[in-house]
């Protein structure tokens, strides 16, 4: 590693020193509304790199192809779509090394590469290496900066809607709490969103478990992005739900998603209101933590019933109805980092959330014919009423064990869901996107 240069901006501390104790303030949509933090440097010399540079120019960004003497760098896009051997990575990536200290607070590094296919060992090695690079770089980022990657399948052009959408998401402040992650674009499905201020305009979205916490944040974000909302929660949370509905001019639906006939009642309600759903956010979830040695059916069963079985039955009913879902439907389910890495005391919860991830993968195949997608978002530690009740020390530890050294906000989860709900995201299918600040657990 190079020693710090005297010209280093004062706000970028010495990389060799211990991590700063105060986490950086993350810039979110209200703090940084511009789509790209400039100047943006596009690395790589493939045709795809040129394509990406032209795209960013069309957005009005200050685009450069070299760092040269830039005192400050807002965003870096490393286009690695044509690498065929590991030794080709260095020439493209190493220029970024000298610019690391020049990265602005909240800077964005995004790689665009292709997933390993098992066809060519050398090419796969290079493609696989990108993942290790990005995940490590994300650990080294400071000042709320993030590093993420896009994996565009072979044959998917770099101007495919979902590649552009994912790039837009990673470059924007909407991905503030997403770092060290990859989104795979499997196809050129989806349509570009003209109106970036209201990317969900004209679309109707259902959010389950919407009365409080992350669910309410999802509803607010989707509404801010232009969607008409149907907000659903259990009858006991009816008045909170009504207040949210009033705030968002949304349609409230009190329904226990685990009750018999919940799917039928939902479909009936949609027909009565002449609504079809373009977006379904399966957020309703509960925890009933207990060490497995003390696990009882009254703690296991409700968690499975709410967190995964209800999702299966609601989607079954919506699909069977025939008229409940719109064109190119988007389903986004809530997983959890506990479902990826496991968590002491959460065998039931982690089982349900791991189930969700496998479920969306299978569901996406069913929806593909209609141009639909199903994906999951896995939140890490998020500041909610629920986590506010954790013991203070455990809470502080949980906040710190990620690259951004802080808890995320419900809005961060909502932003990822809004992106996966967009028309652009049509090429992203069956994936689980972590919103965890690169929590140290799991991949």
């Amino acid at each position, binding site marked *: 590693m190079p020693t710090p240069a005297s010209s280093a901006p004062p706000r970028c501390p010495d990389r060799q020193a211990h991590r700063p104790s105060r986490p950086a303030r993350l810039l979110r949509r209200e703090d940084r509304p511009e789509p790209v933090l400039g100047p943006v440097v596009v690395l790589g010399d493939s045709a795809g790199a040129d394509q990406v540079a032209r795209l960013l120019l069309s957005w009005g960004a200050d685009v450069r192809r070299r760092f040269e003497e830039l005192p400050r760098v807002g965003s870096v896009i490393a286009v690695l779509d044509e690498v065929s051997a590991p030794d080709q990575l260095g020439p493209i990536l190493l220029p970024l090394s000298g610019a690391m200290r020049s990265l602005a607070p909240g800077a964005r590094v995004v790689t665009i590469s292709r997933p390993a296919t098992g066809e060519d060992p050398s090419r796969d090695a290079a493609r696989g290496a990108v993942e290790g690079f990005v995940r490590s770089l994300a650990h080294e980022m400071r000042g709320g900066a993030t590093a993420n990657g896009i994996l565009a399948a072979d044959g998917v052009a770099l101007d495919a809607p979902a590649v552009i959408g994912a790039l837009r998401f990673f470059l924007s402040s909407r991905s503030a709490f997403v770092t060290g992650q990859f989104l795979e674009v499997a196809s050129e499905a989806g349509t570009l969103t003209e109106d970036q201020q209201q990317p969900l305009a004209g679309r109707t979205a259902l959010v389950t478990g919407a009365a409080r916490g992350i669910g309410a944040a999802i509803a607010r974000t989707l509404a801010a992005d232009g969607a008409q909302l149907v907000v659903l929660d*259990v*009858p*006991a*949370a*009816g*008045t909170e*739900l*009504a*207040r949210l*509905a*009033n705030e968002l*001019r949304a*349609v*409230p639906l*009190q*329904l*226990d998603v685990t009750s018999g*006939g919940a799917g039928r*009642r939902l479909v009936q309600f949609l027909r009565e209101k002449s609504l079809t759903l373009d977006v379904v956010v399966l957020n309703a979830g509960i925890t009933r933590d207990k060490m497995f040695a003390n696990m009882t059916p009254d703690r296991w069963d409700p968690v499975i019933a709410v967190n995964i079985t209800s999702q299966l039955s609601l989607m079954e009913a919506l699909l069977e109805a025939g008229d409940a879902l719109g064109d190119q439907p988007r389903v986004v389910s809530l997983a959890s980092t506990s479902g990826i890495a496991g968590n002491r005391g959460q065998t039931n919860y982690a089982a349900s959330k791991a189930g969700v991830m496998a479920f969306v993968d299978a569901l996406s195949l069913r929806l593909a014919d209609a141009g639909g997608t199903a994906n999951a978002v896995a939140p890490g530690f998020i500041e909610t009423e629920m986590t506010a009740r954790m013991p203070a020390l455990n809470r502080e530890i949980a906040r710190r064990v990620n690259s951004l050294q802080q808890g995320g906000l419900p809005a961060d989860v909502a932003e990822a869901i809004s992106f996966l709900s967009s028309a652009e995201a049509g090429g992203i299918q069956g994936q689980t996107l972590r919103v965890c600040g690169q929590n140290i657990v799991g991949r």
Partner: protein
Amino acid sequence: MTESRPATAAAAHEADSSRAVLRDALVLGGNRIPFARAGGPYAGISNQDLLTAVLEGLVARFGLQGERLGEIAGGAVLKLAADLNLTRESALGTPLDARTPAIDMGRACATGLESVVHVSNRIQLGQIDSAIACGVDSASDSPIEVTPRLRRTLHRAFAAKTPLQRIKALGAIRPGDLAPVPPRNSEPRTGLSMGEHMALTAAEWGITRQAQDELALASHQKLAAAYEAGFLDDLVTGYRGLGRDQNLRADSSMEKLASLKPVFGVKSPQVAEPTMTAGNSTPLSDGASAVLLGSAEWAAEHDLTPLARVVDARISAVDFVHGEEGLLMAPAYAVPELLDANGMTLQDVDLYEIHEAFASTVLATLAAWESEEFCRHKLGRDSALGSIDRDRLNVTGSSLAAGHPFAATGGRIVATLAKLLHQRALETGRPQRGLISVCAAAGQGSVALLESVTS
């Protein structure tokens, strides 16, 4: 009439002819929060908060954000003096247009039904196009006042011109003046509580414990079934963690009800065998309800489906003070008057909603209508009104199961009945008529007739 004058003769003619025939006041839907037992989850929550919550739920259900309605009428029976504009203040806390006027109303337990009648009259007359009728009560947060002597002494002290006069005035306070005065639980003119009054009536009509317990059990079972069937999905909005009425006992049984000790008429010499228990009497409750009403045009403009129209209403009062009639028997007089005015017999009614203040209230009322003697001598009729098909009485339960936050009961019944009539009219293809009967303190009764509307 406060409307502006029509500009042209043709318009004037049109307006006059439209006034000659009253237009329909339509029930478009309702909302209530689950009723809680006094001291339960709503303890410490004010009437205004409860009423605001129920109005917010109504606004959300029908998409009324920013709407300027013709009027909101409602009230509370147990009401703080400071809540003189309870309904208006509650409305101001909702997303409704702040220019929506409101009126506070009161006729004890009939406040809710009277509010519905009031706004439906206004709509029928063309004074307003849309309205909410509502009611709220919190037995947990009922007003506690100071003694009249302390109140007068304090007023004298406030009016004093010099500190010395003030000290002198305050010096008149005696320890006995300082005791708080809780709300009166008894009729001011008889000193008997409502339950004690009802116990006398029940004994007079020979209403058995068995019959009362059966009615109470049916109420619980029918309300529980209605919840299970999803009937209340669009009538109730959960509140403070309560999704269903707290008093509802889906697993109640005759054995459980039979095990309860009588609580009313126990010491009365006129009651040989006390029959009224906590199981067959309504508990003190907290809750609120609201009903949305409008003209046909307003409903169409807002894409709302009318459920029923308010056909007619009557009120009556009985002289319980001199013992001529039971305190809660006034509806027995008002209903025949209402039916006669609309050319109906008691049996022409498709659905009966008789408020279960006590199981014995309902049973005594039915017994009176079955009694030749009562109908001849008290009602001045040729014969008895006769009996009713009990399968059509309180078909989704009533106050014994749901609870009875006084002013909220009328709204609960109107919204429930309107939905039932609409559903049954669609099922049977025939118009359905429903009767509402609500007894009230001070020997009063309010009754109303609804008829299904299907488009």
